[in-house]
């Protein structure tokens, strides 16, 4: 139950470009906060700064009102799942999980109980006596997770804790993490590459790119009202289309798409001015596939991909590359077919290019 | 781990044979029962004793330094770590065998001899004189204890240089050693190595001090036979000294008095092949039959030039012929 504040935090290695720049965000107590961003954008670095393994080159980190920038890691009370697990190879599974409890001087009986519960929570009952190098990758990851969860830290830092788990287990574990986190009111900072996961779990999401913060908001905000073209593209692979503002009314505007000339009404236009060159984000699932000529514009199918519940289409309309997702059903267009496309104006959103 | 020794004991650093030293101490304790069990012997090489005493100068640990060449003792005396021995002890030793100021006294005369393995050579085949050593017939028949690290060997080689040269020009001496080097099969690392190599018949001939040769012969039955070289044997002095400001000066005086007594020296002479320096101890009985006589050596000159000569030998002569 402690808020975490990053006060204009930055980090650079040597003279190279900074890997984290001026991050300024406050994570409320008990919040489940997710860092999202492409590989190498500085997520782990940020997490490691909060944990105290990397000293920021600028800015401060505060837990509540306390500036902990110079506090040693063991005095911070964070629990962390390392991206590379960092399990103790000389201890067995149970000893690994118990480590944090021992340092906290938890009595032996209670310790055993909590270790067993934590292992059960990640589906590893029966593995207590295994040596770490006899576990599969996913099992190791779960030990790392159990080790961090079992201590109920006041701040939980999770660096892709589920990346090596299968969908089913991931979902179960996700629920487990959320439950533990809610019960103890743990402030959590989560790093994941799985956007569905981020959407499902997070109270708020911060989107990073090259060490810079692009947007902080609830999953719905980030998804439906991306602040920048990067966010729109990165989250859910939105189609970002160049356009010119034709007409503004309130927070909505009518824009003309570059290339196709099709007109579209969009949200997020509070600050738009007529004639301005902007970009409009339309999500793949916010297109309707029609017969050619019947939608806003026509396109040709360049690739089809079946992903389970939905089918992904890569389309080309003039110069535009578009991706479109529709529920899988028989009779969908095939590679090379011409189709019509109707963007869902309701969900279009104006973004800074 | 408790500190060794009390205040009233006697500490002796000795480079003498351990059995010899122990027997002397035993005799000393019998003669002076108040020191029973209080004499501490510390056996080590002469060079190490010198270094140890020098390093301990601020708070000396030893009372007696027993066993060192005149050069080593002189050096230490000039370094100021030795105290004069009691006058009555000093006076027992002829002047040529001691420091002029009495800061050390010679305990015995070390005769440096040529010896050979009599299982390999008959007395006829063996060299008769030092100059025989450089004859071609003895090529690869000689083992020598390595010179630079051994006080004894330094003295012998320096004596050979001085014998063959004028004081200003050591070159003839060098030339002599060059030939010796050519005949030398191998340089032994230490005395033990030397004895072993000769016993195991790697080569039959060597040079070393008489006492050790005789001791080897007697104790381990080594087939060593010293040669009464026609030009004589160089005689070195091996001495004993009192350490300045040692913990127990009175005991040191007493010990020196005992050690350098005629009786004790006679005994050492007979049992341990020592040639005493003490006037009145006479010659041990085994010495005369060997027929040795002293080779005249200008030890004064040798003392001054030794470093230079040996350095030259190491750099320019050793192993190069």
């Amino acid at each position, binding site marked *: 139950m402690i808020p975490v504040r990053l006060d204009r935090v930055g980090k650079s290695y040597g003279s190279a470009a900074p890997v984290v720049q001026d991050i300024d965000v406050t994570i409320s107590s008990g919040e489940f906060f997710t860092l999202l961003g492409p590989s190498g954008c500085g997520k782990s670095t940020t997490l490691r700064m909060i944990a105290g393994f990397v000293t920021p080159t600028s800015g401060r980190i505060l837990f509540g009102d306390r500036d902990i920038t110079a506090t040693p890691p063991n005095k911070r009370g964070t629990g962390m799942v390392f991206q590379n697990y960092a399990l103790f190879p000389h201890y067995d599974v149970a000893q690994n999980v118990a480590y944090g409890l021992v340092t906290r001087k938890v009595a032996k009986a209670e310790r055993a109980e909590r270790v067993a519960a934590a292992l059960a929570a990640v589906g590893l009952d029966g593995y207590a006596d295994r040596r770490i190098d006899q*576990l599969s990758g996913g099992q190791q990851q779960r030990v790392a997770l159990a080790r961090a969860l079992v201590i109920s830290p006041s701040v939980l830092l999770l660096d892709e804790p589920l990346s090596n788990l299968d969908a089913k287990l991931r979902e179960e574990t996700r629920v487990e993490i959320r439950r533990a986190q809610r019960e103890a009111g743990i402030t959590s900072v989560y790093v994941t590459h799985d956007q569905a996961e981020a959407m499902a779990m997070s109270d708020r999401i911060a989107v990073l790119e090259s060490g810079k913060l692009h947007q902080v908001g609830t999953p719905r905000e980030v998804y439906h009202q991306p602040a920048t073209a990067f966010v729109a593209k990165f989250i859910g692979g939105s189609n970002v289309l160049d356009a010119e503002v034709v007409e503004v009314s309130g927070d909505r505007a009518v824009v003309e798409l570059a290339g196709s000339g099709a007109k579209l009404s969009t949200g997020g236009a509070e600050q738009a001015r007529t004639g301005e060159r902007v970009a409009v984000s339309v999500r793949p699932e916010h297109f309707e596939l029609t017969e050619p000529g019947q939608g806003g514009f026509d396109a040709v199918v360049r690739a089809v991909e079946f992903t389970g519940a939905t089918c992904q289409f890569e389309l080309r309309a003039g110069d535009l590359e578009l991706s479109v997702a529709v529920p899988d059903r028989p009779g969908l267009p095939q590679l090379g077919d011409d189709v019509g496309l109707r963007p869902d104006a309701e969900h279009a959103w104006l973004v800074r290019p | 781990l408790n500190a060794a020794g009390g205040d009233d004991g006697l500490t002796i650093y000795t480079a003498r044979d351990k059995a010899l030293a122990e027997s002397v101490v035993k005799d000393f304790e019998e003669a002076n029962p108040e020191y029973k069990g209080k004499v501490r012997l510390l056996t080590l090489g002469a060079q190490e004793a010198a270094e140890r005493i020098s390093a301990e100068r601020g708070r000396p640990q030893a009372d007696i330094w027993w066993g060192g060449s005149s050069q080593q003792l002189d050096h230490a005396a000039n370094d100021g770590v030795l105290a004069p021995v009691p006058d009555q002890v000093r006076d027992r030793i002829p002047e040529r065998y001691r420091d002029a100021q009495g800061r050390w006294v010679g305990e015995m005369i070390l005769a440096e001899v040529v010896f050979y393995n009599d299982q390999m050579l008959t007395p006829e085949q063996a060299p008769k004189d030092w100059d025989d050593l450089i004859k071609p017939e003895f090529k690869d028949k000689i083992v020598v204890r390595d010179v630079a690290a051994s006080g004894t060997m330094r003295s012998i080689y320096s004596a050979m240089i001085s014998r063959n040269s004028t004081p200003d020009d050591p070159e003839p001496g060098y030339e002599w050693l060059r030939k010796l080097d050519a005949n030398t099969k191998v340089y032994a690392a*230490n005395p033990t190595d030397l004895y072993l190599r000769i016993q195991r018949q790697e080569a039959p001939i060597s040079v070393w001090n008489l006492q050790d040769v005789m001791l080897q012969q007697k104790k381990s039955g080594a087939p060593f036979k010293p040669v009464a070289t026609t030009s004589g044997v160089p005689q070195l002095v091996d001495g004993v000294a009192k350490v300045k400001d040692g913990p127990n000066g009175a005991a040191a005086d007493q010990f020196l008095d005992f050690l350098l007594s005629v009786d004790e020296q006679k005994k050492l002479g007979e049992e341990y092949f020592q040639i005493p320096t003490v006037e009145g101890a006479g010659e041990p009985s085994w010495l005369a039959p060997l027929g040795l006589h002293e080779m005249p050596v200008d030890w004064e000159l040798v003392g001054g030039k030794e470093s230079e000569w040996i350095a030259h030998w190491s750099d320019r002569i050793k192993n190069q012929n």
Partner: protein
Amino acid sequence: MSAPVVQTRRRKLPSPDGDRFVYVLAVPVVLVLLFLVVIPMATTAVTSAGGNGFAANYGSLFGGSSGQALLLSLVSSLLSVFFCGLLGTLLAVLLHRFDFPGRRALSVFAVLPMALPPLIGAVSFVLLYSETGILPRTLSALLGIDAASTSVGGLAGVVLVHAFTMYPYFYLSVSAALAGMDGSLEEAATNLGAGRVRVWRTVLLPMLTPALVSGALLTFMMSMASFTAPQLYNVQTLTMEIVSARTSGNAALAAAQSTALSVVSIVFLLSMRWYQGRRVHRSLSKGTPSARRAPASAGAKFAAALGSLLLTVVLLAPVLVIVLVSFSVDGAWTTQVLPTEYTLDNYLEIFSEPQSLLPISVSVQTSLLATAFAIVVGAAAAWVVARWRKPGRGLLDVVIMLPWALPGTVIGVNLVTAFNEPGVGNLGLTLVGTLWILPVAYFVRFVPLVFRSTSASLDQLDPALEEAARNLGAGPLRVLRTVTLPLVMRGVLAGALLAFVDGVGEYVASVVIYPPGLPPMSVEIYNRIYSSEFGTAAAYGALQIVLILIVLAVSNRLGQGPRQKRSAAAPAVVPAA
């Protein structure tokens, strides 16, 4: 770096990406080293300016015989490093990458040659390889080859002795490193098409760099300061010059030469540090690396078993010769290949003297004490140097290694000078004349062994493990105790083993410092040799070897211990509280 006003206070903290604890721990370590190493050793440098003067003393090194001797020292040391590396690594690989019956026993015997008592060890080389030695005589008896042509001498002899006595510096550290190696790297290399040789050349050996560097440093410095072997084979190295200078009474020149010796060693140390520091040698694999379970064929196993057996026997030969001598009659073994008469007298003599076991007890106790202290300081120093993020860690490294680079006599004399009278430099401690001086000397001399070998292990350790422990609330000391130390234990143990064994065998420094009446074993052996009790000296040597054999067997057990205990399943076993 812009620092807003609010941060000024915090900026004083010396912790760029690390932990203040390193610097906290550095304080006692540096103090101990200052007190026991730096101040005493500074004497040498001071002395070296005396005598004929600074310029003359050092000037002599740049030409003439001293210069040549220095060059010869360098060449023999580099050759020794090469052959020790070859032998030690080969043996480590054979014994630790293959499993075959008898491997455990062999791996105990493989380190035994390290226990060769100094003086008598030299003699055993003469008995084995000189013209009158067992090997040339055997060859001459069997094949009629002239014994003189098969005997070893000169530089080759020096390198032979060094290779046979110093390879454990490589063997132990490489063994420790092999055990901690990430097996998947090797798999990756083979998967990419690399054959066995290439895997070794491009992956395994480079990954062993810290261990090899550790072995190379110890061997190089040891060879540079070695005197026995050059003397035995009459190779005019700088150490020979030093002894010669000292014997002629020129202490200043000797000090200058000793200083030059250590300067060369330090240059070597710094270049090796640089070499090692260029690359990363710890596994960066995700998750916990597992050692490679090499599915070796039966043929390979047999070859490895045979190879390591042969190698061990060859390496053990000098040790066996000592045992042989200890059972033979003094002086009876002359022209024969092997002694013809045997006896138990030598042992009976030792055991019938009431005092004769005292040296063993002195050596064991002082070495144990020194080793314990060396473990604490050496391991702590290794950790400090490994985690030090500021300038100056190279210096710290040099300071610790310095005693290893200097000849033993120099250490002994310096310690006597430093701890003889109460003074500022020694905090009023006078150790001379007490038994305490021995452990102090052994500590100073052998802490580099623990330090180096621990450093090599630390280089393999992923710092993320320490971070994880810190993150779980463990304070720096607990992290060291529960995570770092157990994971580098192999390295620490290897170093401690070396320190103990070398402590028991130490002669050159001991003889200058040992208190009256309490001679350590090596001095006792020396005394007996010089009183021509060659047989009993060998018997003593044999006892020392047996003692060390026991220590080796015990530590071998210790090293294997944790893994076996694990099978005893205990529910929710927890790390030591």
